[in-house]
């Protein structure tokens, strides 16, 4: 037998994936062997795992900064700033969702281990997506992430809406995965490799006489990725799934899945297919404007706060796409800064919604927020800050994030795109204003006014909302550190 040279493995670079996947599987094994697991253990285990990943990110960041980006496992995993940044975002969201999940599960009387297991496995898939330097690895990461999220969406077994939303998400998601896979196959056919670095190398070294196959591949890739990040017209699942799924899970969908999706999109489109930016940037611009406008306008028509935030997340996806279509380092840095801020805003907002949901997770109508400022002034104040952040009001992180992507679009001479997106932002502000008016200016219902002080806010939710608000304010007042971080995180292609 001939000895086969196995690829070099940088174990420290794989630590986040290993922590999350092994953590999830270990919890699963222990939970299935031990008859009565202490109530607090799964949550604590998830939080510890998430924090361990966050801690592991620090030396990774330093290593990448000092030694430069590199690849491992024969060029299928990229170790660069964007990997570390998105991994850290995902780990932080995992911790936040775990903190929100336990009081939620107890309130809804749901079994309490699967959420954490699937959350960690899903996050492992997200980290793989963020670090994938190979189309096959990217696809596998996306599937690990998605399948876990489909099940998480259906986890409220007694709510038929949860099942309905999960079914829609699953069927449409399977379609989107098929599109993505077909796109990958065509790109592979046109370039002869699934390695992103080799794809880029091939495209920069050769001029294709007939690039129809490549363009078809890029188009299909775009469909698959746009579905994952919920961009118009691939957003149809968003409101139903956000409305039906358990609210802590929605926080993961909004913050985690979107972050992983955009990390993958940036790496594939901007860094690897950058030579063909003139082909894919205009359609991405159209997707961006359509998402911002449709998301903002349709959100105004909703009366369910979860549906409102679902459409507003579509609008946010549009803003993120604005940074992607700029197709340069500035745009990419703006996307990463936006992702960090949006992760704060989304987890914070959905933490408030988790608290507000009440028994049965049903009290999400706009009327349920009437007079909240009088019943729960601190909660209402925090929600106000998060909504203002989502609207992009100055001195909040949302302003910094929106300014970044708009500046990137303008610098790329996308005046029309940027102008229309600003119009959409103005329309979206109306949505958040409606919730604020309901909280502050309208009187509470008669029954709610009878001395009830509104929903109880568990400790975990307090921590999440507090950290999110502090983060949003900090980025709004001192944007420098985040912007530097995002600039350092712009992915670089390293040939294998």
């Amino acid at each position, binding site marked *: 037998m001939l000895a*086969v*040279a*196995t*690829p070099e493995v940088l174990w420290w670079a794989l630590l986040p994936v290993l922590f999350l*996947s092994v953590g999830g*599987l270990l919890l*699963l094994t222990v939970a299935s062997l031990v008859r009565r697991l202490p109530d607090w253990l799964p949550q604590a285990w998830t939080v510890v795992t998430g924090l361990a990943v966050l801690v592991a990110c620090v030396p990774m960041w330093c290593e990448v900064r000092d030694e430069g980006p590199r690849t491992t*496992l*024969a*060029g*299928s*995993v990229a170790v660069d700033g964007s990997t570390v940044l998105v991994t850290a975002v995902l780990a932080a969201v995992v911790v936040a969702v775990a903190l929100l999940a336990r009081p939620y599960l107890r309130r809804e*009387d749901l*079994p309490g281990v*699967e959420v954490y*297991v*699937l959350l960690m*496995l899903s996050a*492992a*898939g997200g980290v*793989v997506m963020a670090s994938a330097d*190979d189309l*096959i*690895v990217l696809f*596998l*990461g996306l599937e*690990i992430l998605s*399948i*876990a999220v*489909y*099940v998480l969406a*259906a*986890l409220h*077994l*007694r*709510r*038929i*809406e949860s*099942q*309905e939303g999960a*079914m*829609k998400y699953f069927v449409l998601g399977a379609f989107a995965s098929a599109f993505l896979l077909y796109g990958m196959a065509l790109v592979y*056919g*046109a*370039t*002869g*490799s699934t390695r992103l670095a*080799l794809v880029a190398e*091939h495209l920069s070294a*050769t001029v*294709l*006489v*007939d*690039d129809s196959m490549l363009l078809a591949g890029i188009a299909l890739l775009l469909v698959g990725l746009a579905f994952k990040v919920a961009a118009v017209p691939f957003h149809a699942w968003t*409101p*139903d799934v956000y409305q039906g799924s358990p609210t802590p899970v929605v926080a993961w969908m909004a913050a985690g899945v979107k972050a992983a999706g955009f990390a993958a999109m940036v790496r594939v489109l901007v860094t690897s297919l950058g030579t063909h930016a003139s082909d894919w940037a205009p359609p991405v611009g159209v997707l961006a404007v359509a998402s911002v406008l449709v998301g903002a306008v*349709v959100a105004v*028509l909703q009366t369910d706060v979860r549906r409102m935030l679902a459409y507003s997340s579509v609008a946010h996806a549009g803003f993120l796409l604005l940074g992607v279509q700029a197709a340069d380092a500035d745009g990419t840095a703006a996307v990463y800064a936006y992702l960090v801020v949006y992760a704060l805003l989304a987890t914070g907002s959905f933490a408030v919604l988790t608290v507000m949901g009440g028994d*049965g997770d*049903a009290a999400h109508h706009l009327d349920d927020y009437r007079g909240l400022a009088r019943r729960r002034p601190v909660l209402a104040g925090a929600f106000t800050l998060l909504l203002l952040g989502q609207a992009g009001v100055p001195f909040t992180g949302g302003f910094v994030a929106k300014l970044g992507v708009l500046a990137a679009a303008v610098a790329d001479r996308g005046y029309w795109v940027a102008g229309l997106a600003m119009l959409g932002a103005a329309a979206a502000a109306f949505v958040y204003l409606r919730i604020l008016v309901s909280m502050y200016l309208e009187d509470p219902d008669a029954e709610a006014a009878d001395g009830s002080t509104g929903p109880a806010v568990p400790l975990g939710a307090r921590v999440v909302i507090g950290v999110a608000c502090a983060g949003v304010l900090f980025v709004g007042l001192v944007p420098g550190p985040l912007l530097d971080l995002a600039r350092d995180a712009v992915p670089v292609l390293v040939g294998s």
Partner: protein
Amino acid sequence: MDAAVFIVSAVVVLTGAAGVLVARNPVHAALFLVQTLFGVAVLFVLQDATFLAAVQVIVYAGAVVILFLFVIMLLGVDRAEDLGIEPIAGQRSVAAIVGASMLGLLLTVLLVGVDGPTGARGANAALGGAEDNTRRLGEALFTDHVFAVELTALLLTVAVVGAVVLARRVRGPLQPMPVVTVASATGSDDASATGSDEATATGDDPAAEADDEGEAG
């Protein structure tokens, strides 16, 4: 010799395929499918693609058809079906058109010979001897694509965990639908029942549909 093997296996493949179409009993159709798949495996061997041939036998003839048979027997449809009824109106004519156009496309590609642009050659493009092919595939899987192989394991684990979670019995009463209560929503205690409930729930819920239309406008 090659030609003789080709002709024999082609006959095996074609009679099997015809048998799948003609057989009245679904179980017989599945067995004819096995015959076709074995014939294709022989064709693969003829092309020196021994690994593919083995996979063809193990995965398709071994696993996939067995699953078919499981489903056929579990659902209790192991008897002749009345093929006169069209389950979906107009389905057959559409299928005929699509099939004919696919055949046309294939013939065009074969006869006209569209020379599509492709890039560099893939890792397993160069075919050597019989063992070489298998070894190359194995090498590629455990060197270049080792991470993908490991991730596939994780993916399958996630899928199994998800299936078990969804197939579990529901504790406690179901929450009523906010708008329209579904008649069958009371007794769903396994995954398949829940799945069918969802289908009816999404279809029968006029409020949700109206809502969707409102959003589209």
